[in-house]
Each structure stands twice: as C-alpha cells, then as structure tokens.
C-alpha cells in the first residue's frame, strides 16, 4: 500500500518504549501508520498500538529475534517492504535501529537518513527531513531521492500534528513471512548480561538528566547526582572526567565520545563544560549548571548558572523539590 508508513516497534518483551508512540505520530503525518512488531515469544500488543494510532499491525514471532543480532529484523522488514511497497520505513535511532536501517537501505538501494528530528512528505512523493549536525550547531534540511526511504528517527522528534486518533474499529493483524537466509544466523548472541536495574529512566530518552563531573570530588560524593536525579525523576549522566575517575559506569558518559542527549532539562553539577562535553548536551531545551568556577564554559550555554558550592546547594534543592512534589 503506497500510502502506508511502516514503523518498527521499539519494545522490550512487549512493553512499548516511548519511541513507538513518537514514531507512530511521525508516521501519521506522512501516511497511514502501520506497526511492525518483531518479537521472540511475545504476542503483539495490538490494542496499545492501535491506541497510539497504528491502523494495521504486522507481526512476526521467532526465536531468531532474540538469538541473533540485527539481520533477522532486517530480513523481516525487507520481506514486508517487498510485499507491501510502503511509502517509507521509520525505525527508532538507537544503535540496533541504525544498523537495521543501514542494512535495509542497502537491500532496497534506498535513501537512508539517521537522527531525523522531523519528517514531511515532499510533493514528488519523497520525504523532506530535518536533522541537526555538529552537536546541534547546524540545522540540516534534506530530501530523499530514491527508493523506499528508511528513516532512523531521533528521540523526541518534532511533530506538528496532534496525536492520531485511536482506530475506531479493530486493527487488522497480519503475519510477516520470514525468509530463511544464512546471514541472519551469522552473528549469534551467546549471552545476555543483565544490567543493574537502577530504576531510573534511560539516559538518552529521559526528559530530564542530572550529570556530575570533576567537581563532585570523589566517588562517594558522586552519589549526590543520583539523589538529585531521583528527586527529579531524571536519568543520571556524567562527564568524561567523572567516568575516567571511576565514579560511575562508562555507559553514563555524556559527550562526544559518550552519549548525546537532548532532554527538556539538563542539570550539570560540577561540570566545567569542555567542548567535548557540550557536544553531547548543548541541544538540551533548558540547561542549569552549578559550578564553583565563575569562568566555567558551561555558564556560556546555561539558561541558569549558579556559581557556588554544590554540596551546600544541592541537598537544599533536593528537599525543596521533594516538598514541591
């Protein structure tokens, strides 16, 4: 169906990630949203997908999705695109999503765009995409020129349209035919290492992020970052200095060689704001920084900067936030 926009559903064991709702909204602005649900041993949450605007659900259930990396999902999407000839395929721009998008674009010899923050339909049937570049310092507008565009959509995309109305009638569910191919079983997952569950939101998709840097002084006092984050319902992040000092896990690093985040609120504690750090956070909506050095570069991009002793300020801030909640 040429008007159909396929959305690869982002989920963990059937629990929908925020990206699913975001991508379905983007899809609704482009055509008829259709959810593609790939899982190992989980039935598609059809009603939840319909409530988010999906007009059709394509589903496949196979152990391969949990046992092998990336390619089984590519094979499923490829088979579906060949059969349905959609207008575009949207995938969430997390690492696996990017890889799925890249491989699918090769198979389809089609346009590939990553980190799109907005997608519109062009008059010629292609898509017009917006992206940011160089850590948010440039705004790019592009167009897709060939094939079935494959777009990896950034977290929190800009969507003008209101949330699509939920489907009035039952949403049809169609199984996806899974082709067999040798490459799909070439990269095998031999072990899954369960992360320590912090119970906090994911750093890259959280609406608020609290990060700590060198100014925390030591690993024990770094705990203050988590305390403030918990009071705000925020994710915890860190500067490279804090990671290198071993105060927290490397997966929490924000910056050029770590993660790029653009939450509604970014609250930096004891971070000077070196260019490499700013590269990972300067597109945040609101930035608040506390640092004892009035010359810290972070103040040049902060909406509110406080020159002061974070150990005096943060505990009081936590109790004020708690009492406001």
């Amino acid at each position, binding site marked *: 169906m040429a008007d159909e926009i396929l959305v690869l559903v982002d989920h963990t064991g059937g629990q929908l990630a925020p990206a699913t709702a975001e991508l379905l909204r983007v899809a609704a602005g482009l055509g008829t949203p259709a959810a593609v649900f790939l899982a190992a041993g989980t039935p598609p949450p059809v009603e939840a997908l319909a409530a988010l605007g999906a007009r059709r659900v394509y589903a496949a259930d196979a152990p391969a999705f949990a046992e092998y990396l990336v390619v089984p999902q590519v094979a499923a999407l490829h088979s579906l695109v060949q059969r349905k000839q959609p207008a575009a395929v949207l995938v969430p721009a997390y690492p696996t999503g990017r890889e799925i998008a890249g491989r699918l674009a090769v198979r389809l010899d089609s*346009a590939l765009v990553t980190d799109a923050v907005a997608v519109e339909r062009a008059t010629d049937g292609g898509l017009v995409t917006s992206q*940011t570049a160089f850590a*948010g310092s440039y705004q790019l507008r*592009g167009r897709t020129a060939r094939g079935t565009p494959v777009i990896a959509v950034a977290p929190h995309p800009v969507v003008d349209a209101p949330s699509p109305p939920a489907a009035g009638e039952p949403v049809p569910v169609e199984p996806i035919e899974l082709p067999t191919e040798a490459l799909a079983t070439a990269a095998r997952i031999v072990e899954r290492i369960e992360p320590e569950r912090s119970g906090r939101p994911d750093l890259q998709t959280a609406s608020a992020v609290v990060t700590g840097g060198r100014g925390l002084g030591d690993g024990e006092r770094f705990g203050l970052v988590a305390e403030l984050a918990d009071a705000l319902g925020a994710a915890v992040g860190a500067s490279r200095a804090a990671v290198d000092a071993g105060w927290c896990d490397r997966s929490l690093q924000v910056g050029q060689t770590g993660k790029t985040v653009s939450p509604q609120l970014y609250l930096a504690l004891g971070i000077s704001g070196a260019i490499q750090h700013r590269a990972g956070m300067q597109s945040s909506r609101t930035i*608040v920084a506390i640092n004892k050095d009035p010359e810290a570069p972070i103040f040049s991009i*902060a909406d*509110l900067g406080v020159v002061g002793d974070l150990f005096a300020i943060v505990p009081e801030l936590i109790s004020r936030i708690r009492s406001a909640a």
Partner: protein
Amino acid sequence: MRVLVFVKHVPDASGERGFTPAGTVDRTLPCRLSELDEHAVEQALRLIEQAGTGEVTIATMGPPAAAETLRKALAMGGHAAVHVCDDRLAGTDALGTSLVLAEVARRVGFDLIVCGMASTDAGMSVVPAMLAERLGVPQLSFAAEVTVDLAGQRVRIRREDGRDTVIAEAGLPAVVSVTDQIGEARYPSFKGIMAARKLPLQTWDLAELGIPVDAVGMVHAAAVVESATPEPPRQPGRVVVDDGTAAATIAEFLRERRLLPSSGRN
C-alpha cells in the same frame, strides 16, 4: 591474520566545523583522524600483537589531505594503507561510501574489518553494518571488547550499545566496530612516525576500483542535504553567585518552566 581498518578524516571537533554551499561537510577546515577511529586502529594492532602474527591495513575514502590521517594510523603501527581519492566522490552518501569501501575490502582481502563506532562528523553509525551487508559477512558492532580465536576462526565481542550488553560471536571473516571502551589509543612514537613515511600508501581512484562514476557522488546520492543553516549560538542565560538563596532560585526557576516532576514535564 589480515586486519583491515577503515578510518575517516574528519573536521577536528574542537575547532570550527561547517558545511559547503553544496551541503557537504567542509573539509578545508582543520581535519584529523577521527578520535573514534583511533580506537579501531588500536584494537586492530592489539589483535595482531596478541596473535603474534598478521598485518594491519588502514584504508580511507577522502580528499587528498586524508593521506595525513593514513600516515598517522601507520605511525601508530599499521603496515600498509589505501587511500581512495577521486573528486567525483564528493557528496557521496552512506550507500555510496559502503559500496566503495566494500570494493576496497574485496581487493585488499581481510579476515577481520575493524571500524570505529561512528564518525565524529556525520555520526550515523551505519557504515559498518552496510559494509557487512554488501560483503555478505557477519557483523558485530559496538564492541567494548574483542577477542579472536584464530584456530577456530571465530571472533567474539562484548557489545555495549548503551541499551543492552551482550556477548556475541561469529565466524571469520567478519566486520566489527569498536567503542571507545576498548581502551586508550596509543600515541605514535617518534620511531613509528619515521617508519610510517616509508610504508606503502596506495592511492586508488574510481577507475582503479572499477566503480562506475554514476554509482557514487552527489548525483547518485539517495539522500541529499539541501540546506545547512547554523543555529544561532545558544544565548547565555542568567548567572548568579550563590548568596545562600541559590537552591531556592533554582527550585523557583524549575517551577516557572514547569520542569518539576509534579508539573507534567514530558
């Protein structure tokens, strides 16, 4: 073991970066070996050191100045280099880049291809996957740790993609991409820099690779950047010196902007 490392000559992220009127990254500004690719070179060197045998070939696609990036990677310890350089490659998208790099890989030959997890300019993180797709070999990306079992012809990684951590493995030949977690990249030694000058650096154009001109470049790009507009620099806001009321000031600021958890922030 033949290890092939693909690197990129990118604008230095700590300096000025911009775009040409045609919407491509301006590579006339100071450029360098991408920091994330230094880790790929490092990983490749460690693998042959551990194996006690093997050669590391460094390859790139880029303008003439990209030869400096190859020399740097050779100075770190690489054995040979290939530079794909052709004016008609300007504006090539990821599809075209993966097409060219795949052809280089076929010609050079490899047991393992090592890439960085992303370039520091376009930052798409897609080329290793696209390369594996074109070569029809397994792909293990976002590796924080790589081990090769030469006798068994297998490669195993710890994949840390920021969401999941898994141990994954595949047979050789394969493509891996590594994160900065594999460890610090070595600095070129003086001896290494001197030796690198004498190492073979081949330059290939499209004709030598047998790639038709109309398969690459901006003309054939499937995704085109039509405009690149600098964002107005972020305006500094209010900076206050704590006089004992800073916590109240911040709390009030968050409340005004509806950023407190109770105010429906989403």
